[in-house]
């Protein structure tokens, strides 16, 4: 590993100043489960490592009436161990609890998963369907961006060199809503997705009609893919197999996967349709359960 200087600011302002001063040669370190591996194999060689884990704003995990706030340096394990998050945001648990093994989950973060911008990132489809917003800060000011606009290509994001992802905010899901994330890999743990899919649905009170839906898929395009058309197609449609099949077919049509060691184009297109179908069914089941709890 190349030499670098390690900086551990304890305040956000200090981190912003360091990122401004060293823009282009500094890298933020959250869990390090991707970054340290890339530095060891020479894919990245920053001159400055700025540790995100001592900055309060990046370590905040807060659930209040309106929204969930997840600091960019909060570990996956901290998220899936939180019973309130598990109750309100089950698809976040689906995804954070299957990244790597326990060792990786204790370090890896959703913020890092997003900024690493792998097409197969397992937490990203889940945060997309929940409508998460990324809060970004730099010396020039702050901005808020829907998370589906962060990844631009494999390993690339829309963040500038001097910008810091501070946290994600996710609106509290309404009554009669549910979401599920599913991944296909040859074994149950410790592998990278051949394909994955997340679905969020909001039903009417009777549980018979889709009011809203959002669908996203991974490892089937250069970036985690928000399939807006598939969710939109469900709006005002009856909750049945036919509606779900039509939406899943749109997800398949939107997928532009590649052939690689993990799967073929044809396999991945088939998988995204199957996973989307099952994730939608799972989301509907959870929405109905949620509705009953509220009633």
């Amino acid at each position, binding site marked *: 590993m*190349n*030499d670098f200087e*390690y900086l551990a600011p304890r305040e956000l302002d200090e981190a912003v100043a360091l990122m401004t001063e060293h823009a282009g040669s500094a890298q933020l370190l959250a869990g390090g489960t991707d970054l340290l*591996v890339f530095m060891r194999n020479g894919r990245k060689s920053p001159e400055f490592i700025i540790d995100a884990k001592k900055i309060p704003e990046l370590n905040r995990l807060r659930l209040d009436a309106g929204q969930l706030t997840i600091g960019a340096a909060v570990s996956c394990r901290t998220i899936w161990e939180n019973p309130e998050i598990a109750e309100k945001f089950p698809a976040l648990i689906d995804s954070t609890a299957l990244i*790597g093994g*326990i*060792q990786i989950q*204790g370090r890896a973060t959703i913020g890092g998963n997003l900024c690493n911008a792998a097409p197969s990132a397992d937490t990203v489809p889940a945060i997309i369907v929940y409508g998460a917003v990324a809060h970004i800060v730099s010396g020039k000011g702050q901005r808020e961006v829907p998370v589906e606009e962060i990844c631009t290509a494999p390993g690339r994001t829309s963040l500038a060199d001097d910008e810091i992802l501070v946290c994600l905010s996710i609106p509290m899901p309404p009554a009669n809503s549910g979401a599920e994330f599913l991944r296909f890999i040859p074994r149950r*743990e410790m592998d990278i997705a051949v394909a994955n899919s997340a679905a969020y649905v909001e039903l009417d009170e009777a549980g018979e009609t889709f009011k809203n839906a959002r669908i996203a898929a991974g490892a089937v395009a250069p970036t985690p893919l928000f399939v807006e058309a598939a969710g939109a197609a469900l709006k005002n449609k009856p909750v049945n197999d036919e509606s779900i099949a039509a939406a899943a077919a749109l997800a398949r049509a939107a997928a532009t996967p590649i052939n690689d060691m993990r799967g073929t184009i044809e396999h991945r297109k088939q998988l995204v349709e199957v996973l989307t179908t099952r994730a939608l069914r799972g989301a509907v089941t959870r929405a109905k359960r949620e509705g009953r709890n509220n009633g």
Partner: protein
Amino acid sequence: MGNKSHITATINGEARDFLCEPRQSLLEVLRDVLYLTGTKEGCNDGNCGACSVIVDGVLLDACCMLAVETEGSSIETIEGLAKEGELHPLQSAFLEETGMQCGICTPGFLMSAKALLDKNPSPNEQQVRHWLAGNLCRCTGYDKLVRSVMKAADTLAEA
């Protein structure tokens, strides 16, 4: 650059300090600076779990953490498992159930299993298998490892 940082941490209950370069992983420092060579290097990229240690109560791969990050933290390694010459019940169970063959993965499995039993003293088989998924063993086929952990949990419950 290239300057060494002076780090103070608690290792297996003992206050320690050491010098390290920022680019050195916790795994490198444990083995090459502190000579705590029980923690093994397998893949060095977070896949095999051979370097599993517990930092501030969190199980992690020591290869995926910089040593400079551990300032002020409490680190548990395999060397802290046996107390005053007495094997930890997990270690005894691994011996009795032959939960090892070549031994390279064993310290990592023991630390993972300890982290599991610290959190959940009576796991079922599925929970043990799921928890140990981040540790690879190429010899045992895992069944003996799982039996060892279940046995240790029973022993600890009786104690």
